[in-house]
């Protein structure tokens, strides 16, 4: 075992994993995190805690992780290279391990331009690929990025992101391969609305045997309204939302119900794609729908390994 985390145990035992997401508040109250955690506790194997998502300042990811651990949840510590140089990244990682965190997701981060501090200086000292490799080296070789020894273990289960819908399409698989080689134990993908394109990507993934090197968790974003669908289609770079889906939401009598239906259909399709080892549900501001989705997708109760 690399970290022995619940997520690792589930994935390594060949079970279909479910992860969720918890965005910390733009404030200092632990209650918000606890409330979200309670909602998702029974239906997720681990919960990502976002790191200043979309470059909007929030409570730190590490604190969120610790709060979740306090109520018995397993967190995935998200970390972006946008805000920390290699010193800060490494020291935070050591701190996280000291506080019992067992999973990490290594990201570039959304560009600061999109957030609430657009004039901030981006750090980008190292990139996400180098970040993954750095964590792996810390864990497996007990070495900092400069080659110096680390005292003690750094047992972390390492995750990375992948976006099958960004361009250039052909290179996306190469990039995934690089992440797997760099040390990503699991991958959480961008939200999937275009299953056909995702399946095409997965085929390329399998052709290169990458599904055996790393566990791919397919990303899902439940849609609450046609407005949200439209917004994601038009404004969110790196998302592929087919027009038919927007139309379907527009035509629906009950948009929320339709959103759940779409999500469930997608999960069914994803289950059939070879190499998909789980799902990652990003229900931004709609956390309370997750238990129902997991339930109706037939993924309850969550296994105990």
């Amino acid at each position, binding site marked *: 075992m690399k970290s022995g985390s619940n997520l690792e145990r589930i994935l390594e035992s060949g079970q279909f994993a479910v992860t969720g997401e918890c965005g910390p508040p733009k404030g200092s109250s632990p209650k918000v995190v606890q409330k979200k955690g309670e909602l998702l506790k029974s239906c997720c194997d681990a919960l990502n805690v976002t790191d200043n998502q979309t470059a909007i300042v929030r409570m730190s990811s590490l604190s969120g992780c610790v709060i979740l651990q306090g109520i018995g949840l397993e967190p995935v510590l998200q970390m972006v*290279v*946008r805000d920390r140089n*290699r010193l800060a990244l490494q020291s935070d990682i050591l701190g996280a391990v000291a506080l019992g965190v067992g999973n990490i997701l290594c990201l*570039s*981060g*959304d*560009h600061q*331009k*999109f957030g609430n501090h657009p004039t901030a200086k*981006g750090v*980008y*000292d*190292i*990139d*996400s*690929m*180098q970040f993954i*490799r*750095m964590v792996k080296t810390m864990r497996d070789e007990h070495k900092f*990025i400069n080659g110096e020894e680390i005292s003690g273990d750094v047992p972390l289960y390492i995750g990375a*992101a*992948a*976006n099958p819908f*960004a*361009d*250039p399409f052909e*290179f996306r698989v*190469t*990039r995934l*391969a*690089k992440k797997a*080689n*760099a040390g990503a134990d699991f991958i959480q993908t*961008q939200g999937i609305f275009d299953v056909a394109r995702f399946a095409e990507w997965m085929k390329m993934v399998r052709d290169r045997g990458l599904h055996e090197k790393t566990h791919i968790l397919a990303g899902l974003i439940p849609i609450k309204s046609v407005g949200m669908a439209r917004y994601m289609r038009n404004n969110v*770079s*790196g998302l592929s939302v087919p027009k038919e889906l927007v139309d379907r939401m527009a035509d629906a009598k009950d948009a929320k119900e339709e959103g759940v239906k779409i999500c469930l259909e997608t999960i069914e399709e994803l289950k059939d794609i070879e190499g998909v080892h789980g799902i990652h549900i990003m229900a931004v501001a709609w956390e309370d729908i997750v238990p129902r989705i997991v339930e109706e997708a037939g993924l309850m109760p969550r296994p105990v390994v």
Partner: protein
Amino acid sequence: MIVAERKPMEEILSMIEDANRILVLGCRGCTTVCCAGGPKEVQELATLIRMNRKQKGTTVETLEASNELQCEPQSVGPLLEKLADQFDVILSMACGAGVQTIVKSFPDVRVLPALNTNFIGMAEEHGVWTEVCVACGDCLLGRTAGICPMTRCAKQLLNGPCGGSMKGKCEISKDVDCAWQLIIDRLTRLGRLEVLEEIYPVKDWSAGWHRGPQKIVREDLTS
């Protein structure tokens, strides 16, 4: 070349508010080429300053001059040397390097920048310059098909495009090309795409940004 542009007049005028004798000093190097601080722009700025004062009913004396390469102390020359002390302010239309060279040459004169030094760029077409180099001190163009991700990728990624790359454009703006798309296209064209399979190691910043002032010494050239 170094690409600069004139500061807003409002800023320049407020800097020189209390000056009555102003030497507007252009540079015949980069800032002439990028049409920001050559003899023509010197004349333009001097005229605007005089017009502004005339509007206010006051006067100002301006002298317009340009030297060869303002970042070269030798290019100050005897004439300028003689003149400079007569002025309250030297308004430099060179890049930051030029301004500071003049500062060093004239310890007793206020030297002010009239330009913002923007970037190292190439002339895309007449009147259009784009940033292509950030002087990182550790050139990696040899591995990126001659396209600099340090300059042209908003996240300075070294291992391929982030998830925000769409249709060849960067997530920060539809007007900005995704540097990595360009790199991949060009490597494909050159038949060398496989170089991207390798994980590019972390960058050595010791010769680049945030590292304190740099100095290069060529022993064979120094006296």
